[in-house]
């Protein structure tokens, strides 16, 4: 456990996150859009406020959609061993979570529309208290991981 987890998630994750960032991130642009609308239809707002608002939101939108996914992918590592599942991720705060195998209650895989297009799946691991997700694994890898975990769980529970 002294070594940090090594397995990376699929590199297509970056593409998937960029697409979803570009789509869902449009919410950021809704704020300046509303401000412009308000300014022209109801009560004028000073131009410099409008434009700086637009600029800052645009920057957030683009950074969030184009740069963050790359870093997020680089930071995501996981490992599955006989005794535990070890997850490490985090953009600014580095988070590491260790789930003892025999505490796991169930594992499942899921995919949304973007993941499906890129044939990616995420694996969800549930304990009695929490649910954890390994995002963006290749469909085949995800199925393998799921089967491996459920096999390990069965083995660990027989041991006890």
């Amino acid at each position, binding site marked *: *456990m*002294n070594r940090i987890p090594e397995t990376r998630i699929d590199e297509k994750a970056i593409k998937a996150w960029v697409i979803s960032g570009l789509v869902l991130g449009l919410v950021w642009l809704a704020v300046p859009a509303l401000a412009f609308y308000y300014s022209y239809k109801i009560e004028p707002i000073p131009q410099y406020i409008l434009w700086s608002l637009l600029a800052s939101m645009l920057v957030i939108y683009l950074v969030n959609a184009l740069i963050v996914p790359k870093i997020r992918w680089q930071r995501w590592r996981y490992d599955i061993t006989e*005794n*535990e599942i070890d997850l490490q991720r*985090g953009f*600014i*705060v*580095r*988070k*590491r*979570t*260790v*789930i*003892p195998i*025999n*505490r796991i*209650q169930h594992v499942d895989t899921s995919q949304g529309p973007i993941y499906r297009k890129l044939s990616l799946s995420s694996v969800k691991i549930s*304990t*009695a*208290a*929490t649910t*954890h997700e390994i995002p963006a694994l290749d469909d085949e890898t995800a199925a393998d991981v799921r089967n491996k975990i459920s096999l390990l769980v069965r083995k660990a529970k027989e041991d006890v």
Partner: protein
Amino acid sequence: MSEFKRQHPAAAVDQLFTLIRKNLVTFIILFFLSTRGNGNSIFLYIFFGSLVLSLVTGFLGWWLFTYRVHNDELQIKKGILVRKNLYLSKERIQVIDLTEGIVQRLFGLVKLEVKTAGSGTETATINAISRDEAERLRAELRGRSTTEVVAEVGEQSVDVIDDVLETWKLSKRDLMMAAITSGNFGLIASILGAISGQLDSFITEENLDFVIDHLPGASNVTLVIAVIVAIIVISWTLSFLGIVLKYSDFKVERTATDLIITSGLIERKHITVPYNRIQAIRFVEGVLRQPLGYGALYVESAGFEIKENERSITLLPYISKHEIQTFFKTFLPEYEQNELTIKPPKKALFKYIRRPNYLFLLLLPIAWYLFDYGWGILIFIPFFMYLGWVQFRDAGLNLSQNILTIRYRSLARVTAFIKQNRIQTIGQRVNPLQARRDLASLTVTAASGAKGIEFKIRDLDAGEVIEALNWAVDKRS
């Protein structure tokens, strides 16, 4: 082979009362609307209509609710429009509650609630059955099968399982002390504050002038202070009464397999927690209680409960920290109190002292902008620094053979005891500032209610956090 049974008819009365209580506001509004008119207002019909409807629903609800214990399962059929079959297998049962509410007490009955683990399930409630019947059900539904227990205690009669081995009672004096020091009046104060916000329309200039004219020496400032004091006194009284009602005749009993907690003055509760369902133990020393050396002890179990404040079960409302070890020995032999040997290192001290002030720095410009003497809140800085120092002093961790002990403080000091094999997840958090100093925070999750409960200790030495992760996943022989 047992047959499906109905509850005592009092269940219908209970359901009627519950319906009325839930829709009390609607009923009152309807009542006033209907009496205001000239006698044949449409609201009068609606009012009586809904009363009759509640009666019918109450009766039908009782008539269509049947239950039995069969094949180690509690089976319940219920529902008026949508029929529901609820099957709870007894291996899944976490907690069994018996409650005597007001209606139940009138008829000498109890309410039985069976809680299972995990989300998506629900609590099975049988609203009104006789005490004997409830005891019989409880005996049938306990966490372990009878054969299992017989194998363990030998061939003695099965009654042995029910024998009370130890009893712990809350003395009158401790009940009073618990009520006096109950910390949750802050919550009630905020509720009252919200209510007084609603009263704005009554606090007009004229009314204020009237009060000021008639109370000698009253000014705006004294009035504000008076209102604050009044809110604190009222909320403290409410909280005092709440604790007295809830924990009167409080008693913990121990049998071979369960802890049984009984308490309450008007509504008597009777909670059975099987030993093998205990997820964690939590000792909370409130701000008012800690100086006296006292706190409250809670049990976390994985029974299904959505409401945050009902997830944990109070094991002891008021106990001295020196008595915990003795209590563990007699009632929770698998738990122990250990010295917290792993502490945050000295280099973390400044982080602790700074942290409570962060929020404050956000507030400062707002206060400065809004109030004449807004910068005056700066006088709170030493207080927050002190809080940070106390948080640093109290934080600690111990990893013994089987028990993880973790202590931390936000305002109240919390000490949690978790068995190694009850740790659901354990994690490490490192922010950039911590990374520079080789520090890390540790989070430990145990199951509690439908969700988990997280315990967190900040700024430990990174190496010691890794050690804790290793300890948690290590297989015990």
